[in-house]
């Protein structure tokens, strides 16, 4: 059996490669070149940089496995970066990592896995893939604090049957310990936090570069429509944002609405942010679709606890009504459905 390991140059995927070798697989390591500057070179700052690729290459050499850098710049630009910029232009808060998983890693790279003669695609994500009586399931990681099942919700049966996530079976501490035992150079490398193609560290600067003239600017309004401040462009804002509003009224205020056309931001109190539910498009399911009217647990943010909601099919869309009102999720973000530890599926919040 052969395994293709997507190596980012971080500790998780380094250990994932080592674990697959231990499980008896022939392993090939690859890094995806996803982004390049105008000079055609890999970025040198941020995540997924040239030095990350070099770390991956050195780990692969240490593990004595072949290693390659694959060119996915075109796919990534079309499927992730452009929609990211366009989404912000439309007042959305896109999640590029999920789009990358959906449209590059677990599609294009999964197809490539087979072409490269490999049986499974392995990543360093913290989540678990399990088979129960012929049904493949996506489960939260053993290490709840590192769980990444949310960003993998788009995996279906075909995908899950070919994806292996060996580090999801261990805590992050154990992953680092294993890396240290194996003498891997990435053992104490810090986790990456940034969006990989935003090399400046601030996505607002990136968007300004990507879409000249989108800075704009306009009024900050209260719920009565009164002008209470000024902002430098809707692009810098997301629904639910509390910091950096440039308005002081003595108690916390949150962004409750963004109107791109008028370039206005409306702010309100936390109570004004509460909503009964949300509408989701591009729904996918890890196995069978849920039933119309089914009660499920949902996460509308990566780092929040699941809450109960009833899902009702409305045409192509699903409307979720929360058991209790929730802070309004930002359109463009992702809703993921859970049954306890197991992921049922998810989609993109549109309203």
């Amino acid at each position, binding site marked *: 059996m052969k395994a293709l390991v997507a190596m980012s140059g971080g500790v998780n995927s380094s250990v994932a490669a080592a674990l697959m070798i231990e499980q008896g697989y022939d392993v090939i390591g690859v890094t995806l070149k996803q982004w390049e500057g105008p000079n055609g*070179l890999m970025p040198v700052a941020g995540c997924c940089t040239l030095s990350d690729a070099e770390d991956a290459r050195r780990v692969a050499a240490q593990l004595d496995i072949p290693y390659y*850098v694959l060119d996915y710049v075109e796919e990534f630009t079309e499927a992730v970066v452009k929609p990211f910029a366009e989404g912000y232009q439309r007042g959305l808060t896109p999640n590029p990592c999920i789009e990358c998983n959906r449209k590059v890693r677990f599609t294009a790279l999964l197809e490539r896995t087979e*072409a490269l003669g490999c049986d499974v695609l392995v990543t360093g994500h913290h989540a678990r893939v399990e088979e129960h009586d012929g049904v493949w399931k996506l489960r939260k990681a053993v290490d709840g604090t590192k769980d990444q099942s949310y960003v993998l919700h788009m995996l279906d049966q075909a995908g899950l049957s070919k994806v292996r996530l060996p580090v999801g079976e261990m805590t992050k501490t154990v992953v680092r310990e294993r890396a240290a035992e194996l003498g891997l150079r990435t053992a104490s490398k810090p986790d990456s936090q940034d969006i990989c193609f935003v090399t400046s560290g601030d996505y607002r600067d990136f968007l300004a570069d990507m879409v000249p003239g989108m800075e704009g600017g306009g009024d900050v309004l209260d719920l009565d429509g009164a002008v209470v401040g000024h902002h430098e462009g809707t692009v810098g804002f997301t629904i639910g944002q509390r910091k950096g509003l440039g308005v002081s009224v003595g108690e916390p205020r949150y962004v409750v609405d963004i109107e791109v056309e008028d370039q206005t931001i409306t702010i309100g109190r936390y109570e004004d942010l509460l909503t009964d539910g949300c509408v989701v498009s591009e729904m996918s399911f890890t196995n069978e679709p849920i039933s119309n009217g089914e009660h499920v647990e949902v996460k509308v943010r990566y780092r929040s606890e699941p809450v109960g909601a009833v899902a009702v099919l409305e045409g192509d869309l699903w409307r979720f009504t929360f058991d209790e009102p929730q802070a309004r999720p930002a359109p463009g973000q992702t809703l993921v459905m859970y049954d306890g530890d197991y992921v049922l599926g998810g989609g993109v919040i549109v309203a």
Partner: protein
Amino acid sequence: MNPDEIYLDHAATTPMRPAAIAALEESFGVMYGNAAGQHGAARRAKNALEEAREQAAELIGADRPHDIVFTSGGTESDNLAVMGAAMASNRRSVVVSSIEHKAVLESAASLTRSGYSVRIASCDRNGVIHPDAVAQLVEGDTAVVSVMSANNETGSIQPVAEIVERVRSLDHTIPIHTDAAQYFVGKSLDIAEFGVDLLSLSGHKFGGPTGVGMLYVSSTTQIESVLVGGNQEAGRRPGTSNVAGIVAMVAAMSEVVRNRQRFSETAGAERDVFERSLLESDPTIAVTAGGVDRLAHFSHVHIPGVLAETLLIRLDAVGVFAATGSACQSGALEASHVLTAMGMPGDVAQECVRFTFGWDTSPGTGAAAADQVIETVRALR
């Protein structure tokens, strides 16, 4: 070399020839003197250096040993030729071809930052630069012309002598450079026949060590040094001489010239067997620049429906080492400017692979490699 491996990436770099290894071993340790010094150890080094220079001049038919400038390799030679000749001239434009190595193209591009203009001669669909295409770009302001002798991706041979003749007929004072890094491996080379003023060679392409190369500079050609900080190489290339590397490179050069006939017979024959087998097994496979004069050890092929990136990894797994001829610094493949210049659509270019045979290619290699390629291509379709 590992007997299970078939190395078909000789155009990227080729194993060192035994004569070069012997020369290196002999020189290292003995040639520790700085060739610029004033004592016995320095004289030993200096003598070895100048002997190598004389030999190199003779091997390419240069008039005088002084015409040879030793450098750190092909890239530096190309930089020195294009930038050095342009900077030594009071003219402010350069003419290069569209299929040049990046070392030439980016030298030209960097000159634009100093106010030079660059004109780029296009090639035909076979990757050949026609003399007219160059001649029509030559103007009164042209400081240097650079057209390679043979392309490093397709192996297509360029009509350098004709280009020189055409340019000379327009203006006999313009220095003309050719990058012969690949050409010299496969074809006998005589400066007088080419008629060029500047010619680059790279040691490791023909069995010398990496990190050493040379630039031929005719006695009538002025170049300005690109590096600064010393008077070595008659002020044209400062830096302590890499004597052992130079001696080894020239030893390899000598082998190249002596074994020229055998090279084209063995490497060329294996290349021919390889291509014939591929085409017989799959008539949709097309040899790039197949209809024009090519270097005998080059095989650049388009395999429809198979992504080069995937094929190369699959071939690597069975011990066949090939390339596309264009990769970025991370190792990822990138769109080839040469194939683009030839008018090849991007999706076709992504399905092209380069196999290059070499001086140590053994009989049977072509057939064995073809079998592996055919089998892998079948598995991928």
